[in-house]
């Protein structure tokens, strides 16, 4: 019996290390549960809705919960991202159309320093609000691993559509009307 103690302890230690490794690897992977739910039509609630993030270029904060009742086009971007530059004018144009429809674009900077983000906003003439997610936890809760990504959140605070790559005007014009037409 005593002979089994040492091998037993070694096996337990090895199993514990493997479990730890498995846990670490599992938490590194990307989360595609939102994509799966949206594609099946089960619109998931937008995560981290009560997290207040600082507004770029001002002392205020913004959180998704405060925008409940509005359609929010959440666009994750960074100043160093080429496709983000290409889609910025499209989003700004859309913002002008959304103003009168109780809807807004909301930009979120991703892994970007604030001075570069502010320059980007100026250069692209962005008028919609932009929040900064310094820790990256907010965008990670959406399963974001890169930029640009765009999520359309309906008036009930649910993710109704998403695109994990560059958007174009066609996608917006095909996606938004139905979501805008829904009542809160």
């Amino acid at each position: 019996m005593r002979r089994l103690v040492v091998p037993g302890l070694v096996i337990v230690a090895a199993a514990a290390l493997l479990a730890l490794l498995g846990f670490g690897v599992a938490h590194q992977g990307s989360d595609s549960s939102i994509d799966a739910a949206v594609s099946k039509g089960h619109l998931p609630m937008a995560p981290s809705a009560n997290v207040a993030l600082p507004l770029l270029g001002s002392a205020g904060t913004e959180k998704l919960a405060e925008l409940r009742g509005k359609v929010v086009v959440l666009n994750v971007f960074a100043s160093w991202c080429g496709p983000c530059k290409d889609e910025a004018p499209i989003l700004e144009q859309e913002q002008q159309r959304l103003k009168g429809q109780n809807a807004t674009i909301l930009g979120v900077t991703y892994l970007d320093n604030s001075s570069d983000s502010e320059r980007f906003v100026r250069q692209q003439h962005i008028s919609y609000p932009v929040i900064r997610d310094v820790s990256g936890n907010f965008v990670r809760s959406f399963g974001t691993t890169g930029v640009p990504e765009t999520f359309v959140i309906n008036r009930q605070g649910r993710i109704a559509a998403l695109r994990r790559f560059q958007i174009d005007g066609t996608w917006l014009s095909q996606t938004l009307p139905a979501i805008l037409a829904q009542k809160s």
Partner: protein
Amino acid sequence: MIALAPATAIAADTTPKASLTDIENDVMCVSCREPLAVAQSPQAIAERNYIRTLIAHGKTKAQIERALVGQYGPAVLGKPPAHGFNLTVYILPPLILITGIGTLALLLPKWRRRSKANASARAPIAEPSIATADAHRLDEELRRYGG
């Protein structure tokens, strides 16, 4: 002289106190998850430019690292902050080392005692006996070939 003093102080403040090479070895490209020193992505280039700006403003390495955490979050640091799951990085290696040394310290004397006891308990190996006639023949052969 008095008028020149503030200008000198400003000039001294912007003297570089850190080097890009030193900092980029200790921080990460946050989007590509590799050390900034080897990363070449657009985000890495932007991060490097930001560090260059801070160096030009005379910031120290510690100040620059704090500014980087403020802009990109704690993931920008090469060594993860010591809390949550990251604690395993700091706790596990010394724990394994100490446990290993402790186990060896406990078991080695036991193993040595056991092997000594086994050696002394073992019966001496008997010399194989040969018949007298064979012994004579062997002596004869050895004499013939050995000289």
